[in-house]
Structure formats: C-alpha cells, structure tokens
C-alpha cells in the first residue's frame, strides 16, 4: 500500500516537473513553435477567433446557446476556415475531455470507401452517448449528440455518399454530420438536401490582412512595407496559403540570420540584392521582403510576361513565331509553372483596354481551352506556344 502511495507521489512529482518544463517551454515559444506549422499553431481555438465568416459564425453561435445543431454542409474555396470552424465548434461544445468520445473526424487520408461508411461511421453513429463527468457541463454545454466530421467529402465516391443517406436519418437523434467540401456540386443531391448549407466565402482583404499582421507580430517577424499586400495578392484569398508563405519566408530570412563562421561573407554576397541582409545580422528579428514572398509563391517576374505580350503583338506573321518561340522556350527551361504563366498572362491581357471586347472574348476561349489541356496533363511547352501563337493570331485580326 505504501508503495502505491509512493507511486502516486512520484507521479505527482513527475507531473510537477513536467509542468515546470512546459512553463520553460512557454518561455521559449520560438523553440517549441518552430516544430509546428503556423497554420496549425494559429488555428482558431474558439468560434470567435474564426476570421471573416460572420454569417456562419452567428448561426453557429446561436446553436451553441440552444444546443441544437442541424446536419451541416460547409463548402467554399480552400483556406477559408471550414475545417477550423467545425473543429472550434466541436471544442467549444465538448471541451477537451469529451472531444475524443464525441467527435469522429474522417478525411481523405483515411480509407473512406463504402465499407468504412457502413462499418466505422455507422458504428460510431450508433454508439450510445457517454455521460460527461460531474460539473463538466458548467464549462461546456455537451449537448446530447455526437458529431461526425467528414472532411474533404467531395473526394468520397458516389456509392459511399449514398450509403450515408439512411445512416444520417436513422441516427439523427444522437449524431450530427458535418460534411466539408470544396465543390458542392460533387456532393450528391440527397445528401445536400439533408444538410443546412454554409458557404464560406474567400477572405476579404481587411480580415486577411489583420490576421497576417497579428501572426507576424506574435512570431516577431519583421515585415517590409507591402509584404502583407503581396501575400494577399499571391494567395488569392486562401489564408492558409498566405500563412504558409509567410512562414516559409520567415524561415528563409531567419535561417540566413545565423551564419556559420567563414561562410557569412559568401552568404552576404548571395543575398546582396536583399538590402536588409545587414540589418538581419544585427537585429534579433528577421525581415521578410516582398521579393522573397514572390519567389516562394512562384510568381513569374513581370518582365517575362511583358516580353511575351510584346512578342505576341501582331507583326508580319513569320516574325511573330520566332520571337514568341524564343521567349516561350526560355520560360519553360527556367521552370516557370505553365498554369502560373497562363494566369498572369491572362490578367495582363484582360486588363488591357486597348484590346476590343470581341477579341477578348475569343482570347478567353483560347485560355480556357489551354487551361483544360494543362489540367489533363498535356505538354507545357507545346501548350504555351500554341496559346501564345493563337492569341497573337486573334490580336492580328483587325
């Protein structure tokens, strides 16, 4: 018996020691945080933290109070906070202790064929509710149902989806489903009609900006003016992308900060164009520049696009081919991504007011066709060349 108590005491001591070390870890947030992607680290913990999806959040807040939840279908472009929202909601509903027993999260990395839906999901849905410990309800509402989160539901097969139909209805008393997808059209109608739909719109500039600045401040990353705008432009409303870019850029800047002896000189030479390199060495913080963001995002330099546009201007036809093919060959050999090139070229041409509308519409058809081909996996070099030549053909029409 004595040893038993002893054990307990030891455990307590160990816990205390652990607590001490975690406190120490908290004192060095950089050490610890480094191991985790910022996307995970700054995932919103409560519904209130979720940025910008006001409508959805108000509805969900209300359900938090009334403890009644419909089946839900979240859809919207990537990086708008769909998974974060449902996880935050589940956490608020159940708290850390009940979370495991009340929430089943399945995503595309799990096997999700029809057999899984039949067995695992059904078993979970059927399971009786466990009772929350005493006084636990004071902190968390713990409503009398479980939640099944099917992340990336648009990659589920039709069969698996239709196997869900009846399951959702039969066990609706004790289980709620939350489907998350990018394309609502890939969810079969019977499922969609059983859920209340929430559209997640891509983040507007203001909110994204605020969040990014917040993170930068917390991580003690210095930003050059304009970096946040560049991030938002490159990420196209995808906050996760923006945060990943920011972290990568900060890593690059931070890694350069700590030079190995003897090589620092060389490194400075390499980073010569980076005007802040000297500053980085002195200061504890790191500065992220616009150019580093663009490099990470794979944005093609404007000069190249301009060259291409210039090459495409109508001339005597033969000349067009030679000039265009040279620019394209170089671009491909430099490894620029074709899809990125197309997007940037598209913007360049569409916002050019000198081109009449009729031609623009023809050009857009060409763009969409080539985009489809690229998605199908066609050869990039031929496709870009074809695109450029056909567009220049249209330009020459008048």
């Amino acid at each position: 018996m004595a040893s038993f108590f002893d054990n307990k005491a030891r455990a307590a001591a160990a816990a205390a020691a652990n607590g001490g070390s975690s406190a120490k870890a908290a004192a060095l947030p950089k050490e610890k945080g480094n191991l985790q992607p910022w996307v995970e680290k700054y995932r919103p913990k409560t519904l209130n933290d979720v940025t910008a999806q006001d409508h959805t959040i108000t509805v969900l807040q209300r359900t938090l109070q009334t403890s009644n939840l419909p089946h839900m279908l979240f859809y919207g472009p990537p990086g708008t906070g769909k998974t974060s929202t449902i996880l935050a909601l589940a956490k608020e509903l159940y708290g850390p202790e009940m979370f495991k027993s009340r929430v089943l999260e399945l995503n595309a990395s799990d096997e999700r064929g029809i057999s899984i839906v039949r067995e695992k999901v059904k078993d979970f849905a059927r399971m009786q509710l466990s009772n929350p410990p005493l006084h636990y309800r004071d902190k968390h509402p713990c409503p009398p149902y479980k939640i099944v989160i099917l992340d990336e539901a648009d990659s589920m097969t039709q069969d698996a989806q239709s196997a869900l139909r009846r399951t959702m209805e039969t066990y609706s008393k004790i289980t709620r489903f939350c489907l998350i997808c990018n394309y609502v059209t890939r969810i079969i109608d019977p499922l969609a009609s059983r859920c209340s739909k929430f559209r997640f719109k891509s983040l507007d500039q203001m909110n994204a900006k605020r969040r990014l600045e917040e993170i930068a401040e917390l991580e003690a990353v210095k930003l050059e003016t304009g970096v946040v705008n560049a991030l938002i432009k490159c990420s196209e409303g995808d906050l996760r992308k923006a945060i990943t870019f920011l972290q990568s850029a900060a890593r690059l800047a931070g890694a350069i900060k700590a030079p190995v002896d003897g090589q620092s000189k060389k490194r400075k030479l390499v980073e010569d164009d980076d005007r802040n390199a000297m500053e980085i060495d002195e200061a504890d913080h790191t500065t992220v520049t616009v150019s580093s963001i663009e490099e990470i995002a794979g944005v093609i330099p404007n000069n190249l696009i301009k060259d291409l546009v210039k090459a495409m201007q109508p001339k005597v036809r033969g000349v067009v081919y030679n000039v265009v093919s040279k620019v394209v060959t170089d671009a491909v050999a430099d490894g620029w991504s074709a899809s990125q090139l197309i997007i940037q070229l598209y913007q360049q041409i569409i916002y050019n007011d000198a081109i009449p509308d009729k031609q623009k519409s023809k050009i857009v058809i060409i763009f969409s066709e080539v985009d489809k081909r690229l998605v199908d996996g066609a050869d990039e070099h031929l496709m870009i060349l074809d695109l450029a030549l056909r567009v220049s053909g249209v330009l020459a029409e008048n």
Partner: protein
Amino acid sequence: MALLVDKYRPRSLEALTFHENLSERLRSLAQSGDFPHLLVYGPSGAGKKTRVVATLRELYGPGVEKIKIDSRVFQTTSNRKLEFNIVASVYHLEITPSDVGNFDRVVVQDLLKEVAQTQQVDQSARQRFKVVVINEADHLTRDAQAALRRTMEKYSPNLRLILLANSTANIIAPIRSRTLLVRVAAPTEADICKVLKRVGNAENFSESEALNQRIASDSGRNLRRALLMFEAVHAQNEKVSERTPVPPPDWEALIAQIADEIMAEHSPARILQVRAKLYDLLSHCIPATTILKTLTWKLIPKIDDALKADVIKWSAFYEHRLRLGSVRNRYYHCRSSS
C-alpha cells in the same frame, strides 16, 4: 564503369555548380532544424533529384547514402495484391507511387501513415522527422493527392515530404498551399559548358570549346542529356575537333528523316510510308509524346512562316488528345495536307 552522369554527380550542396542561390537557400533550410514540406519542380535534367539528395545529406549526414531496395506488397480494397519497390535508408524513403498506376492512393495512404506513426528509430539522428521523397508527383492521381493533404498536417512532427515534379500544373491547390515551392530552372548553356569542361578535364579528354558549345545548345538545356552526348562523342572519337559531328540518338535521326519525307512529297503513298515508320518508332517504345514533339521541332524550320502557327496549333491539339489516350496517327495526315 559508371556513366559520366553518375560518376560526376555532385554529392553535397557545396559541390553543386549552378543556382548557388538556391543551394544556399536549401542549406539554410536544412540547418535551421525546421524543415518544411518541399515541392521541387523544374524541367528534366535541371538537377532536381541531385539537389534533393544533397539536401538530405545536409540534413542527416552521409548515412543517407546507404540505401537498400525493399519490395513491399500492398493490398487494395478489392483484395488485389500490389508489389511496390521502395528505396530506403535509415532516415528516408523514396517512392514512385505512379508505378502502380491507379492504385497509388492505397500505397500513399498505407505507407505514409505507417511511416508517420513511428518515430525515428535512430536516437542519434540529427533530425526527429523522417523524410519521404515522392518522385513524379505530378503523375499522382487526384485521389492520392487528396490523401496526402491531411497527412501532411497531422503527422508533421514525424514526417516531411519532398515532392518532385516536372510541373505544378497537375498538383492540386491544397497541396501547393501546404508546401514550400522550390523552382529549379534548367542550367543555361554557359553553365552546361562549364560542367562539360570540368568533366572533360577530369577524364583527360581532348578538349574543344566549340564542340562543348554545340553540345550545350543541342541538349536543350538538359544537363543529363548534354553529359550523355558528351560521353558518346568522346567514346566514338579518339580526338575531337570542333567539327566532330554529335551523333543524335537513332530515333531522333529517324524522326528527322520522317520530317524530310513529309516535306518532300504529299501523296497517299508517302503517308503510308511515314505511317510504317511511325509504327516502327512506337513499337520501340518511344513515347508518342516525344515523337510528336520532336517531329514538330524538326518540321518547324522547314516550313513556311505562315504555316508555323497552324502546325503548332495542331500538334498541341493532338498532344492533348494523346494524353486522353486516343489514336495517334491521324495527325500526320493533316500535316501532310497542310
């Protein structure tokens, strides 16, 4: 005797000759102890793989080079058995999921989870995580890529992925937003010349500046190809001068011949001849895309300026058709008649 390409492959980041900026960046990432998922893309022969191996060495030290080849059997949901080869060292795995075609999802799910759920065995290892290198990531099916998404986030303490691809067009956006994109551009001709010169000196080949230059421009900025051509030339000739012909691969010679024939005469009989030759090429396992592309480049200089745009248009069109898996030869009929 190893090929020159393998013999002089740089083993460490310092030894890499071009794109110093990039190597520097990779090194600083490897040293920072906080290594992100990478997506390395660029044209073939630009040194993607070499760079990745060098980075791994920087991460773990020379232990990475001790590799063994494992054969594993996976089972699909429909109980089909798949055999799959894995190149592995203590610290990293290298897989080419596109080998198993449509079943790559199974492999990705099973294997990565298995790797991710165990910790690094070697306590003395420099990094806590293991690295999985995925070759030909642009040939992964949608399903397999979708399966990667959450795995990358969930198991990030134990696992880092390095994806190698020729283009990012086929990689779905969620993956792109989770990785650090690393673009490896093809070496410039001057870069290739430098490498050729260095290799030539090390091998005691007689040297010819102009020949090197020509090899570099013929190789289409593909270093591997340049080195192979370089070796071929020196293997065939004891002494080289600037006029020594660079022998093209025989399939390329044949395609050039086809191009000539197409230009020389437009008649049904000629079409049949060309067709026979094309089947010959196909039966020698030359990928149809390669044939099409090479033929296009060979034809372009020979035809009217006005027709060039059309030719490109049709070859792009049929290239796309090829990808979708349709019949090949129709194309040349159009070509001949144009």
